[in-house]
């Protein structure tokens, strides 16, 4: 007869658990970013890698600086790295690195830590960082350098010393959305799909984003309803406006600007989007409508960031109105 263990352990049911954890979800998303970073490096050169590294490092550093020093705080779950990398990928390629660092610090400190850390942020931290940069440096944030200038090409602006702007003007190219808004020129679909256009680091290549999004969705890393609702709304709404000549074609709307990147990586942030299934549909609908409104009738060429931030703000309300009806109730 075997001796029974001296002390049994008391834990609550269930005594089995699904093979899933928050850190794993985070690292899967980080892994999904790798192809996006690779595409960015392909089009914008080493600058892309520098910027992503800066963003991730500063974000992690900020998290470490403000969290309790024992046990690295919430560093281990990888969410800070993710926030920093995501932020960098939404920035224009010629942005000074010190601005990337500032944005990452703001994203973590303001977007996340002030509100109680992981799981309690109200707005997507990366987008808070980006919105801060957009409001602080409106010109620099809308100056795009052209893709394909060689892998080792670094704009002088990128390495501008902190607090200063570049000595020499960036050789700028207009983004497809800027072109259509201000010069009524549309861009061919092919470069939009491959990503060989001016724009923020991570957003240009539609094909990479679609593949990554589908993989993440199938692996159930995020709630598929959010990106699907967002993209479907944009297609339908812009399609209707397109028929009246009030919007570029849905295909252009989908493949240009930060829509796909936002739909795959920003709309799917679980913390700042509704928990309910119905709420997810509402959220996507809201983002889609706002994107189309801002792009076509607003003052800015691009509105994905603001649309998502605004819907983030509405998320507690959406959660409230979309409470599921209990079974049989």
């Amino acid at each position, binding site marked *: 007869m075997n001796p029974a263990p001296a002390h049994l352990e008391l834990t609550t049911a269930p005594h089995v658990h699904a093979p899933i954890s928050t850190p794993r979800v985070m690292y899967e998303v980080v892994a999904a970013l790798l192809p996006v970073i690779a595409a960015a490096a392909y089009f914008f050169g080493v600058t892309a890698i520098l910027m992503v590294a800066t963003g991730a490092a500063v974000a992690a550093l900020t998290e470490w600086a403000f969290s309790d020093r024992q046990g690295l705080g919430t560093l281990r779950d990888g969410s800070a790295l993710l926030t920093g990398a995501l932020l960098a990928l939404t920035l224009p390629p010629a942005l*000074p690195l010190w601005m990337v660092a500032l944005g990452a610090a703001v994203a973590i400190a*303001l977007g996340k830590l002030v509100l109680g850390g992981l799981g309690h942020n109200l707005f997507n931290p990366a987008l808070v960082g980006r919105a*801060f940069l957009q*409001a*602080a*440096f*409106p010109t*620099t944030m809308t100056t795009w350098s052209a893709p394909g200038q060689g892998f080792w090409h670094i704009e002088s602006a990128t390495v501008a010393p902190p*607090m*200063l*702007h570049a*000595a020499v003007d960036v050789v700028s190219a207009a983004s497809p959305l800027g072109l259509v808004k201000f010069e009524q020129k549309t861009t061919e679909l092919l470069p939009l799909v491959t990503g060989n256009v001016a724009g923020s680091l991570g957003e240009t290549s539609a094909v990479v984003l679609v593949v990554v999004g589908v993989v993440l969705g199938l692996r159930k890393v995020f709630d598929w309803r959010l990106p699907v609702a967002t993209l479907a709304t944009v297609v339908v709404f812009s399609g209707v406006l397109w028929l009246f000549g009030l919007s570029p074609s849905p295909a252009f709307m989908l493949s240009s600007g930060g829509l796909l990147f936002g739909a795959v990586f920003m709309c799917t942030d679980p913390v700042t989007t509704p928990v309910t299934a119905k709420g997810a549909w509402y959220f996507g609908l809201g983002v889609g409508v706002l994107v189309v409104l801002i792009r076509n009738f607003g003052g800015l060429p691009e509105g994905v960031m603001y649309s998502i931030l605004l819907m983030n703000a509405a998320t507690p309300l959406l959660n409230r109105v979309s409470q599921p009806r209990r079974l049989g109730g």
Partner: protein
Amino acid sequence: MSHDNGPSLWSTFSAGLWRENPIFAIVIGLCPTMAVTNTVTNALVMGVATAFVLMGSSAMVSALRKVTPGPVRITIYIIIIATFVSAVDWALAALLPLAHKQLGAFISLIVVNCIILGRAEAFAARNPVLPSVLDALGMAAGFTLAMLMISTPREILGSGTLLGLPLFGPRFEPWVIMVLPPGGFLTMATELTILAWWRHRSAERQALAEAT
């Protein structure tokens, strides 16, 4: 002023300056604080204008406190305040037309600055003229101090200038957000946090000192 009630008058004045600072401690009168603190000059002019209105209306309210019937007192206070504000508005337009243009409608909006009505109701209506004026002076000084504390970082970072004078070289990249509405909210929030932290620390130190 008699010698023995000097200290109490002084504390009446100093309360508003820091301990009961209208912005940082009581957190009222926020509208102008946020709206006009994008430059130090504006903040100063606003502070002085508010101070004038605050003192004038406090004196009047206090002087008339015995003949003001309760049910209509708020309306009467507001008439008094609005009178002073109108006067300040025109005085500024006549004397400092540029600053007046910069501040625009916010001069008129001093009327609805909660500090003024608040002090009228909470202090001037219950105290004689001299303490009321001193209280108003203290509050106004505290208000102006707070306005300066908020406007200084906003102007330095947001425009790279202080009182309109450039501080940095031509390559300085200003943080435009600081002079925009979000910058106002965030600066205020940051300063409140720093103050709370500072108060917390000094309270801790005091407790420690008392314990040992």
